[in-house]
């Protein structure tokens, strides 16, 4: 099998698509491009396609990574061109590399996700910095994640890689945050914003926020540079 790693985007057009549907979009694009994709064996064969980290509904990304396999050794420029032509609005193919040999799974390689949150400030923008400071200074914070099935307690500060940084311009807060991704779990940027709003009096409304994933890193480098 011949392996490829791609750096692709999830743009504004498909902001509200789920991770599963995003994978379906890529799969159909590979089919349309007539790339000789490799499939798993078994009763219900599916395309060998692996992603680094699931992206939530409502979040765009400048850099998603996926590994896929072809049954023929097509050269990089050909795969790049054929795939690019078949990607729908909202998905751009930025980089593509071939690689061979055993390699850690993408999901195991990713360590850090860099996000930017853009949200209108409601009321006094002087209240923004104190809220961020308070959050940054808190040694730990236990968040109760409620899902339809159960409630989990998660200490979130372990997932915050560096102090939050915010900047207010034209009534909008731009918040940068680096989130640690581990095999056993992580926290979503939306969850952090909700905590900031409810527990640290950040003067914003979470539902008005736009969240962008800016980078996915492993060993401090973009995942595509690891192959």
């Amino acid at each position, binding site marked *: 099998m011949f392996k490829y790693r791609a750096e692709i985007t999830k743009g504004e057009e498909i902001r509200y698509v789920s991770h599963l549907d995003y994978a379906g979009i890529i799969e159909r694009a590979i*089919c*349309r491009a007539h790339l000789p994709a490799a499939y798993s064996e078994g009763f219900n064969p599916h395309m060998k396609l692996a992603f680094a980290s699931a992206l939530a509904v409502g979040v765009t990304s400048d850099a998603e990574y996926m590994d896929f396999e072809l049954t023929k050794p097509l050269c990089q420029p050909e795969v790049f061109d054929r795939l690019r032509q078949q990607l729908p609005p909202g998905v751009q193919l930025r980089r593509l590399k071939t690689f061979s040999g055993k390699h850690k799974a993408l999901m195991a390689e990713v360590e850090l996700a860099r996000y930017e949150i853009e949200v209108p400030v409601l009321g006094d923008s002087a209240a923004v910095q104190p809220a961020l400071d308070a959050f940054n200074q808190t040694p730990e914070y236990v968040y109760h994640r409620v899902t339809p099935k159960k409630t989990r307690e998660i200490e979130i500060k372990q997932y915050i890689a560096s102090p939050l940084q915010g900047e207010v311009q034209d009534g909008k807060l731009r918040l940068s945050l680096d989130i640690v991704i581990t095999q056993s779990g992580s926290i979503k940027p939306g969850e952090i914003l909700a905590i900031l709003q409810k527990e640290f009096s950040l003067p914003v409304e979470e539902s008005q926020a736009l969240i962008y994933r800016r980078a996915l890193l492993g060993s401090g480098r973009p995942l595509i540079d690891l192959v």
Partner: protein
Amino acid sequence: MIKLEPEILQAVEKPARYTGQEWNAVHKDHSQVDCTFALAMPDVYEVGMSNLGLKILYEVLNRREDTVAERVYAPWIDMEQKMRERSLPLFSLESFTEIGKFDFFGFSLQYEMIYSNVLNMLDLAGIPVWARERGEDAPFILGGGPCVYNTEPICDFFDLFIIGEGEEAISELAELFIRWKKEGRPGGRKGFLLRAAQVSGIYVPSLYEPRYDANGMFSGLKVLAEEAKPVIYKRVVQDMDAAVFTEKPVVPYIDIVHNRIMLELFRGCSRGCRFCQAGIAYRPVRERTEKHLRELSRRLVDSTGYNEMSLTSLSSADYSCLGGLVDDLMEDFQDEKVSFSLPSLRIDSFSIDLAHKMQQVRKSGLTFAPEAGTQRLRDVINKGVTEENLLTAVAAAYRQGWKQVKLYFMMGLPTETDEDIIGIARLAKKVVDLYQEIKGRRGVKVTVSVSCFVPKPFTPFQWFGQVPLEEFERRQRLLKENIRDRSIQFHYHDARVSVLEGAISRGDRRLGPVIYQAWKDGAKFDGWTDLFKNEIWLQAFEKCGIDLHFYNERTRSLEEPLPWEHTTPGVTREFLCREYEQALKEQLTPDCRRGKCTGCGICPNLGVKIIDWGEKDV
């Protein structure tokens, strides 16, 4: 252009229903075309996007350089609430244009219980719901789809309808509109409608007035303009190979009800089941050639990237070249891992073998529709299937490895007795026992799904009084009591919906105000079990002083004029009467597809003929 703020989209379920931009969606500059269509399904995105008819019309209209067609579906209740809070009008998914700015706003009408959504969408678009209240600037509201064989209950909300197959008529309508527009819109809105009324298959309801006698019985229709035809026959495409088919369907970003390629093998089914409206509405049978279907498949896979294809038709297993087609398609797409499926199976071993071949590995359930529990009743409805046929087919399926069987039945069919109801339970039990007999062990799952029969216009049962609600419920209990085997799962429909459907599907224009009242009082998405509010409908009938039972439970006399007879699929009254009598005599009528003509009148009335490629080969 409508802009949706993130706080709206982030507050609703499945926001990608409203954001468009899908693969193969067509974007045109409205200032560069002469005619704009908004094509709607009055149901949620996932349902609307799955409709083949709308896909075809979208492609037909967008292939015209002078016309654009865009899509719009009913916003789900959470989105509707946001839109109403912020006075956001209904918009199209391509250019986010307000629907009120289109030249035409067309609705696909698939079933009666979705009518309240039509009114709701008109209202959301800021368009007066009553046709007579619309001004010169309003879009023309167009209806089409299977419900046009009785438009009367909703016709006061529409400006015009296409009766029958729309792919040719809708293009003619666009041309007619452009000509009228370029001439300076002579006669205004009414002027266009008078011209449209002369196009074959177009019905303009405002040009007709129903008459009722002293007892409130419908006595006929008065034609108000000389441009209007007394009878509007359905449109039929004669050559299916030449007809435009959807080759570049819009591929959704999110999962939808039928998220796969739909390859339409043929139209029509002349098996002649007497309860079935589609069987009459889509006659005669017209097949595509195998060669053409193979070409279409290639183009569809290439344009969508789907790896699943459904071979659709009313009774796909009847396609004359099916065996060969399936072999060829499986070979053509072997490397691309495309899988194929048949939406319905005939009750015979040919179908089982084929299903086995198509789903080599995954043995999901098989579905059969015996429709009735006893041979006597199956003969009444002309379902030419015996118990032996069913058991043979099921046995073949078990031997091939299936262990899930779904059986569809109807309840409340004409002449039905308790014996027939218990017959459903008995038949299901036999299907269960057969598994033990063949496999020597238990472990089969049989699902019995029973719907409540709704008599439909233009069927031999159109005169028949529907079973009352309490009686439906008694029969459901009776059946439940008689199903004792734990391997059998019993599903049945909410009879309250079926009796309402029974009233509306054979209603007349006097039901318009009832539908309006129900919508005013909050009825919407009535086809969705959790949103259906029976009380609203019952009260709407009461408020309007209309007796529900006059429409659903009353058996009509064969001489009575029927309020839907002017928009016709072309079948003769004599044929339907004859079939009604044959039904009561438990006599079968054969399929005319390869046998002799049974005289339904459709071919001569419409000047079309059966196209079946099987005949030619033999």
